[in-house]
């Protein structure tokens, strides 16, 4: 029975469960045994013996006094009665809320028909009767709150051995049940107690005591677990089984040694490890399990040595016993935790190797010593008191159930520990198994973790942005907020802010509704803008970013940040206003431009017609009336024609100048050398193809420019150069590029008339002329046009000249080039 293979974790669970049901059985039977002791004690009272022999009124009174005294001391008893041989009540003491009450003679009842009275009537001297456990019934109704009762009976005989009556003691068994329930008080497992028929006395809620109710369907273990019941009912006395609900360990037992008459009555104790717990046995406390195992072994070996030492010796050789002991010892010493077993007085009975290592004592120093030496000096004084209170109400205390504890090494140093305690009884002796786990490393990790937490907290507390957490659901409430958030809403504390419904912080409630709809749909909202109100009623614009977080249990909350964007809003509004103004200006400019276009359009059409008339009719006069015109007349008409034609040229040039201003510059690769040659050939052919002018153009002269505008500019510059070299012998025109301060500077150079640099600044103004018209004719608009083209490209233009020594025009075509 002690054979256990602890190689697997599940076996350990099984072992632990076996121990549990056995421990529960022991607790249960001990409880019943105590009841039999109590009733035997009552039966031996002088007043009872007196009554059995005399049946005197005096003896009845004495029994009443004794009964009241007894009940006063044992509140777990509900009722104590003396029945005569016919089953009539002679003395009855009820235990009610105010204490024991002796029932007057006229209220006593005849109980002869009751099953317990009949059973007791057949008992032999010294035998004890124990009733089935059921609920107390008063006047045909189950008493509420329910009152589970066990009736204990003892037959009374006179000194001649004549049957005289019986004592019936009602025991409120709840007292015992709660002790059994406590065994599993701190874990996920359950303990059930079934009666012989398989009804739950202890078990799942609402399924207990079903047999007491005749109405409705009576749910029993056999009905729910038909597969298990046959084994539990009639198989071996203890065992294990698995099904979909979990892992079952059972122990079936009866009343042997207590109520020989009630042998047929059995109970079954079942410990259940729910399936998820059993299979997913998460980080099982292996040390704890081993300790339970040790306790179990201890219990059994205790019985080997005390109860049936001789019997066992017959069955097992001493060497086998030694071998087993050695195995336990190995197991104990291989446990990762320190394990100390002490007796009721606190004397150390057993320690494992880990205790030696951790505490620095020799084994001999510890065995027999008081466990208090392992306790730090400052707590040692209370420890005895704590042990005492534990001994009075021993229970299983898992690891970590108590507050921070420390242990003391031999050298006086202390270390943090967690301690679990498991009590075990053996022959009335209490042993406490204590597993002591050194948590120094874990505390360090916790410390690191706490520091990390602290850093995060510091970050959130001091970040200059409002951070908060919101409960989700119809009533959004602020659960947490950092100081920036609290200040933003002008609250004096988190509590004040949290007390306000979140919707109250919105100037327009629809904004919150819409925000929540977004969140519900997307789970995340980025930069949602809404007008909000502080607790003091100040309004501001905010930008809200929020995310929905889901908790493991399906609950939700919202993490969010809020920025006050009022300043930004104001700036944006200013920018908007400025933009509006600019838009207005642009509109005005566009209108002006349109007017200008319309103006130049009509100039182009209408201003030329009168000139054409002047020229045309002058010519008509010259041709058709030559005979009546003298020389002067002809000259004046010629001057009218020249004037008209010059004005037409002027108009064309001015139109060109204004057109350039409105022109959109395109950027394209232009072969400037080729363009220069074409323009030059054009100029020459229109003027005098015979004139000898040498043209030098640099090779590979490519530029990025608008080809149409460049053509206009070069035509003007080249026409000028051609024109102003008109009186020069060996006229030369050079076009090229040079790199100056990483800028491409283009130039058109001639060796013509040049000009006085004093007037250079007038050069590029419209209608500005530095030469007499009769010498070099022109409108004075050409260079203004060139300058406009250059400016349109983002470039600059300047000139260098000397009178009679030629001129050079330089220009660039962009603001700055790498």
């Amino acid at each position, binding site marked *: 029975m002690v054979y256990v293979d602890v190689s697997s974790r599940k076996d350990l669970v099984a072992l632990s469960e076996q121990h549990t049901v056995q421990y529960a059985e022991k607790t249960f039977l001990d409880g019943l045994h105590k009841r039999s002791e109590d009733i035997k004690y009552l039966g031996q009272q002088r007043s009872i013996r007196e009554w059995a022999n005399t049946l005197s009124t005096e003896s009845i009174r004495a029994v009443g006094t004794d009964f009241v005294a007894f009940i006063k001391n044992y509140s777990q008893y509900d009722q104590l009665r003396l029945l005569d041989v016919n089953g009539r009540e002679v003395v009855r003491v009820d235990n009610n809320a105010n204490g024991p009450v002796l029932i007057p003679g006229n209220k006593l009842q005849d109980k002869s028909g009751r099953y317990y009275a009949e059973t007791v009537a057949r008992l032999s001297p010294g035998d004890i009767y124990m009733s089935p456990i059921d609920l107390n019934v008063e006047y045909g109704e189950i008493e509420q709150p329910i009152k589970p009762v066990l009736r204990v009976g003892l037959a009374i005989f006179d000194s001649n051995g004549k049957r005289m009556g019986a004592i019936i003691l009602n025991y409120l068994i709840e007292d015992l049940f709660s002790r059994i329930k406590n065994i599993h008080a701190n874990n996920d497992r359950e303990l059930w107690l079934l009666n012989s028929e398989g009804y739950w006395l202890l078990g799942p809620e609402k399924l207990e005591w079903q047999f007491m109710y005749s109405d409705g369907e009576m749910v029993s273990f056999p009905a729910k677990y038909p597969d298990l019941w046959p084994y539990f009912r009639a198989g071996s006395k203890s065992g294990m089984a698995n099904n979909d609900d979990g892992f079952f360990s059972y122990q079936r037992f009866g009343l042997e040694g207590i109520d020989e008459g009630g042998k047929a009555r059995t109970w079954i104790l079942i410990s259940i490890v729910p399936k998820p717990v059993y299979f997913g046995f998460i980080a099982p406390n292996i040390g704890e399990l081993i300790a339970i195992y040790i306790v179990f072994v201890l219990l059994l070996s205790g019985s080997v040595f005390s109860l049936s030492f001789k019997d066992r010796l017959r069955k097992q050789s001493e060497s086998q016993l030694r071998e087993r002991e050695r195995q336990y010892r190995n197991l104990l010493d291989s446990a990762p935790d320190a394990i100390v077993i002490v007796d009721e007085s606190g004397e150390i009975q057993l320690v494992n190797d880990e205790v030696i290592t951790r505490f620095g004592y020799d084994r001999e120093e510890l065995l027999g010593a008081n466990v208090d030496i392992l306790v730090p000096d400052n707590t040692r004084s209370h420890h005895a008191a704590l042990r005492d209170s534990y001994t009075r109400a021993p229970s299983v205390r898992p690891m970590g159930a108590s507050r921070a504890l420390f242990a003391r090494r031999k050298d006086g140093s202390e270390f943090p520990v967690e301690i679990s305690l498991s009590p075990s009884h053996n022959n009335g002796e209490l042993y406490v198994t204590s597993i002591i786990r050194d948590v120094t490393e874990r505390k360090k990790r916790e410390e690191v973790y706490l520091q990390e937490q602290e850093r995060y907290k510091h970050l959130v507390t001091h970040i200059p942005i409002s951070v908060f957490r919101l409960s989700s659901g119809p009533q959004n409430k602020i659960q947490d907020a950092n100081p920036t958030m609290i200040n933003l809403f002008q609250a004096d504390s988190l509590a004040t802010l949290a007390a306000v419904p979140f919707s109250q912080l919105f100037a327009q409630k629809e904004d919150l509704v819409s925000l929540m709809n977004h969140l519900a749909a997307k789970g995340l909202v980025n930069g949602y803008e809404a007008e909000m109100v502080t607790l003091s009623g100040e309004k501001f614009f905010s930008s809200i970013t929020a995310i929905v977080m889901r908790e493991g249990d399906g609950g939700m909350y919202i993490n969010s940040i809020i920025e006050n964007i009022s300043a930004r809003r104001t700036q944006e509004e200013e920018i908007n206003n400025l933009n509006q103004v600019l838009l207005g200006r642009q509109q005005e400019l566009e209108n002006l431009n349109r007017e200008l276009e319309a103006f130049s*359009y*009509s100039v*182009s*059409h*209408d201003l*030329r*017609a*009168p*000139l*054409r*008339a002047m*020229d*045309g*009719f*002058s*010519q*008509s006069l010259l041709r058709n009336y030559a005979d009546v015109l003298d020389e002067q007349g002809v000259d004046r008409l010629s001057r009218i*024609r020249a004037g*008209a*034609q010059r004005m*037409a040229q002027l108009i064309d040039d001015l139109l060109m100048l204004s057109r350039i201003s409105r022109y959109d510059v395109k950027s394209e690769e232009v072969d400037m050398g080729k363009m220069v040659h074409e323009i030059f050939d054009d100029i020459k052919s229109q003027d005098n193809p015979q004139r000898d002018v040498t043209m030098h153009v640099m090779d590979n002269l490519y530029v990025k420019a608008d080809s149409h505008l460049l053509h206009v500019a070069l035509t003007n510059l080249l026409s000028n150069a051609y024109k102003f070299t008109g009186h020069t012998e060996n006229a030369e025109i050079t076009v090229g590029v040079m790199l100056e301060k990483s800028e491409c500077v283009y130039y058109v150079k001639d060796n013509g008339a040049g000009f006085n640099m004093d007037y250079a600044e007038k050069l590029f103004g419209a209608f500005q002329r530095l030469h007499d018209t009769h010498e070099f004719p022109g409108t004075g608009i050409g260079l203004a046009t060139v300058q406009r083209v250059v400016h349109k490209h983002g470039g600059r233009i300047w000139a260098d000249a000397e009178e009679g020594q030629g001129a050079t025009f330089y220009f660039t075509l962009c603001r700055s080039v790498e």
Partner: protein
Amino acid sequence: MTRGVILLVEDNPDDELLTLEALEANSVGNQIVVARNGVEALDYMFARGEYEGRDIADMPAVVLLDLKLPKLDGLEVLKQIRANEVTRLQPIVILTSSNEEEDRVKGYSLGANSYVRKPVDFDDFVQAVGRLGLYWLLINEAPPKI
């Protein structure tokens, strides 16, 4: 020389006179019809109003069309002539003062056959008109009648 009519659409009497003189100087003997605004020009083309009863199929040899006109401008006149099933193939020369790019783009887009800018210099003007006459009345083959 074809004996077709030349339709001169011109609102400026000076220009009208100069054009007629230039045509005469080039010995162009064709009948010249002058329309002084866009509506008149279209009345002639579509044989309506003053010209009701004229055979619409009897198209001018060439239309000399100014752009700036009272009532209906030259480009509109051009558009309507091109839109009419009978007159759509009519040879049309835009003869105007401006050389605005916008005018040239629109003129050609609407289907002008030529674009000639009237020079201010009368000698140049006479030469240009002479060349126009030579080309449209002698060299060019008229479109078939529809």
